[in-house]
């Protein structure tokens, strides 16, 4: 500090203000890292007593989640399967529709259509998950009952479809940004060589924007995995290990939200929930890191 020219001599009010500001701002930014450490320590610290008592393997491979039985069983697979089932089916629906919408928005739509379509998608992203849950529980479930006659009125498919609607705006906004950041020169070169619009989109723009599109898909799946309210209201929350999309399932997020209200601090059940939370955190953290990595590579390619 003292070696910098001029600063040492001006140790007046100005210097005091500058260093106070520096300190305050530094402290504020420090908070974000402290929070991450808190998340880590609390999840791991509270999951450890559970793991040391019941073992990690039994937790990860157990087919039965029944914490209130005697003796209790803490197998996470029913919850994990519930999450995988709704997210996977949701992604199967959301990805084609989302990508189609992205291509329309960035390459085909006229500026006038764009001006209304983009805010519409942002509004869709902004609707609270409880409202999606309400729609799934009261309306969508009835429609599905008529079409498919499922085993349970509230079921995994219902959850997956409402998740698909929630995933699309995220997917579209990130993928569209990626497609827009493909340099115009590439597009023009393709056109100049005689390719038509569709050929340009398929052979030039999509391959160039692919990392961004992949990141968009990954992040939207992350959103689906972490979603709580909509799936609680849509899937019926039966704790069972099943791959039947017409059956009621309970996801990890729903299991956490429902069970945490019924347990006191310090019980086996309470610690078991932190193990579930840790697993959920690890999954979403992994998903975000992948997306971050892919996006960073993409941004470097088109500076």
């Amino acid at each position: 500090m003292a070696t910098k020219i001029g600063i040492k001599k001006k140790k007046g009010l100005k210097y005091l203000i500058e260093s106070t500001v520096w300190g305050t701002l530094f402290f504020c930014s420090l908070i974000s890292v402290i929070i991450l450490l808190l998340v880590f320590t609390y999840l791991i610290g509270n999951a450890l007593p559970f793991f040391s008592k019941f073992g990690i393997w039994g937790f990860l491979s157990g087919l039965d989640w029944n914490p209130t039985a005697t003796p209790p069983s803490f197998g996470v697979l029913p919850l994990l399967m519930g999450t995988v089932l709704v997210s996977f089916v949701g992604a199967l629906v959301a990805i084609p529709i989302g990508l189609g919408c992205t291509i329309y928005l960035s390459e085909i739509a006229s500026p006038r259509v764009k001006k209304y379509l983009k805010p519409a998608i942002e509004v869709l992203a902004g609707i609270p998950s409880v409202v999606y849950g309400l729609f799934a529980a009261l309306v969508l479930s009835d429609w599905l009952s008529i079409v498919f006659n499922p085993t349970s009125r509230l079921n995994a498919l219902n959850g997956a479809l409402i998740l698909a609607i929630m995933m699309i705006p995220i997917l579209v906004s990130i993928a569209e940004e990626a497609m827009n950041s493909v340099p115009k020169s590439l597009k023009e070169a393709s056109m100049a060589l005689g390719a038509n619009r569709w050929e340009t989109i398929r052979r030039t723009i999509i391959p160039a924007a692919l990392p961004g599109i992949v990141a968009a898909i990954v992040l939207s799946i992350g959103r689906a995995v972490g979603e709580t309210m909509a799936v609680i209201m849509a899937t019926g929350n039966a704790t069972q290990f099943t791959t039947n999309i017409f059956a009621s399932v309970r996801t990890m997020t729903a299991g956490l939200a429902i069970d945490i209200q019924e347990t006191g601090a310090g019980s086996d059940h309470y610690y078991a929930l932190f193990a579930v939370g840790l697993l959920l955190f690890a999954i979403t953290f992994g998903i975000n890191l992948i997306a971050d990595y892919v996006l960073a590579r993409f941004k470097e390619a088109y500076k």
Partner: protein
Amino acid sequence: MFGLFRTCALIVVLALVVIIGYVFINGIGKWSVNFFTQDPRPDLHGALVLGGIFSPLIGTLMLMLLVLVIAIPVGVLGALFLVEYWGSSRTSRAWWIVVNNLAGVPSIVWGLLGVALLVYYLQFGLSLIAAAITLSLLVLPLIMVATKEAVEAVPSSLREASISLGATKWQTIRHHVLPYSASGILTGIILSLARAGGETAPILVTGVAVNAGIPGSLSDQFQALPYYIYLMTQTTNRTQAYGMAYGAALVLILLIIGLSLTAIILRARYREKYRW
């Protein structure tokens, strides 16, 4: 082929129209003066399906206000530090990876942290302040990312000019960086508040209660609009409850969309005003 893409876009718009349309048609009929001025009242079986949504609405507004006070100064100043003082250093980039990942943490995991840290360890109990801090943690990374983007959009020539004229770092930030990035930051703040107002899962586990009324202090339990909607889908008196759920959902949607649209318009104006 292009028709297929147009159909995809149409499906997305249709989903939006159908969901909002359903809530609007079923909800608007429930709106009355009493709906907004009365607290929820129990019916003969004790289900809180009569009365109005006054206390849940006030609870949600109080939550948003607390988040505004707690999370926004920290988020904006923290992001400002990372961009303006540490710029594109390696530490700063690693720091932003942390922030980005925090932004992707599921809301129920924040709820879990709130329960362990605030409700039990710090002994706040199930309370308004525990829920407000939990929500603040949830929106903090969102505010930071929004602030970062707004601040980074200010051209560095502006900063260099200011510094070369003898202004200190903070003077440069205060008089040149902040005014030009203010509307961008404001957009991020509004969107974060909208997010906080609509979240259900974190408050579900940290302090919302069925019939808490309007909290008198920060350590009281409270009601909230999203939780009220959830509750209405769980009661037995369906004919009455579903109408109330739609009515409340319409209020929540208008509140959130109103905020989001303000942010969108603000951003569009800002983009037109400052083209570097």
